[in-house]
């Protein structure tokens, strides 16, 4: 077992302990602070899974805004929950049933870190294989691509895809006809950011990002309207 897997398991176990604490502790301020610890542990877990962009977002959102929002709510409400029965048996039964069904559903998932999993070899793969976010350090940016990995790990019936030969950065921004001539019709991401997440966010999921902004705007307007109307009445 590699040390990364061991670190992953330990961190997930710690996160489970914190989650139980968040749910079971009576003081709401303590629950908020345990939620902060939870998102700090999530940062380590995501760093361990190489998802640095997600860890960034979690830093700003999970540890920062969520804590401030919850503390602001606590200022206007109460500090402790009512004394409730220790275990809510119907809820526990529902949770255990749902959990066992979900675990049964994950049994057929590909193994953790399996390079031949469908997500790494399917249609998405072809989109990702097109030199997303290249850098022009002689030879380095062509040393590895998703498609080559897929070809190494799985034998596919498709003909081998040839990548455009090395060119300078200025030429890459050049005409589409030239790109087509090099035999890569889907090469949309040419000359984009070296961060593939940014490239994908801008190109492949552009509408998604746009409507995400709409969601934030709607949430902000909803908050303003909700909080302001009551003040007028009072």
């Amino acid at each position, binding site marked *: 077992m590699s*040390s990364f897997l061991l*670190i992953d398991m*330990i*961190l997930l176990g*710690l996160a489970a*302990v*914190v989650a139980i*604490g968040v749910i079971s*502790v009576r*003081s709401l*301020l*303590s629950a*908020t*602070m*345990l939620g*902060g*610890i939870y998102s*700090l*542990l999530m*940062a*380590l877990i995501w*760093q*361990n899974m*190489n998802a*640095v962009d997600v*860890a*960034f977002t979690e*830093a*700003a959102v999970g*540890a*920062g805004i969520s*804590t*401030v929002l919850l*503390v602001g709510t*606590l*200022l206007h409400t109460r*500090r402790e929950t009512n004394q409730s029965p220790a275990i809510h048996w119907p809820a526990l039964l529902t949770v255990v049933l749902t959990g066992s069904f979900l675990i049964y559903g994950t049994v057929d998932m590909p193994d953790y870190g399996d390079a031949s999993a469908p997500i790494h070899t399917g249609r998405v793969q072809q989109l990702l294989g097109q030199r997303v976010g290249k850098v022009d350090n002689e030879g380095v940016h062509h040393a590895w691509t998703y498609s080559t990995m897929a070809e190494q790990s799985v034998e596919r019936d498709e003909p081998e895809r040839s990548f455009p030969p090395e060119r300078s950065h200025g030429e890459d921004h050049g005409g589409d006809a030239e790109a087509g001539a090099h035999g890569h019709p889907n090469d949309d991401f040419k000359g984009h950011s070296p961060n593939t997440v940014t490239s994908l966010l801008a190109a492949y999921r552009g509408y998604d990002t746009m409507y995400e902004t709409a969601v934030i705007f709607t949430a902000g307007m909803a908050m303003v309207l909700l909080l302001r109307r009551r003040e007028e009445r009072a």
Partner: protein
Amino acid sequence: MGTVLTITMFSLMASILMTLVRALKGPTSYDRILSVNAIGTTTVVGVVVMGFLKGRPDFLDLAVVYALVNFVATVAILRFVEQRRLG
């Protein structure tokens, strides 16, 4: 070098575990705030160590952001403490 970094990572996680027990047990809210602050600092160091362990130490901006956000969260909780008495 990887072994030393791995051992450091494990000791940081053990420190997080012990501080976490204090956060769960903590008789007063101040113990919990202190634990959150200590875990935040340990997490920042853990993010840096993990970056070196992964061989990609160019994501240290993440640790900078966490250092600042942790401070902001602590100050937010302390503002709460100033406005309301805690038990």
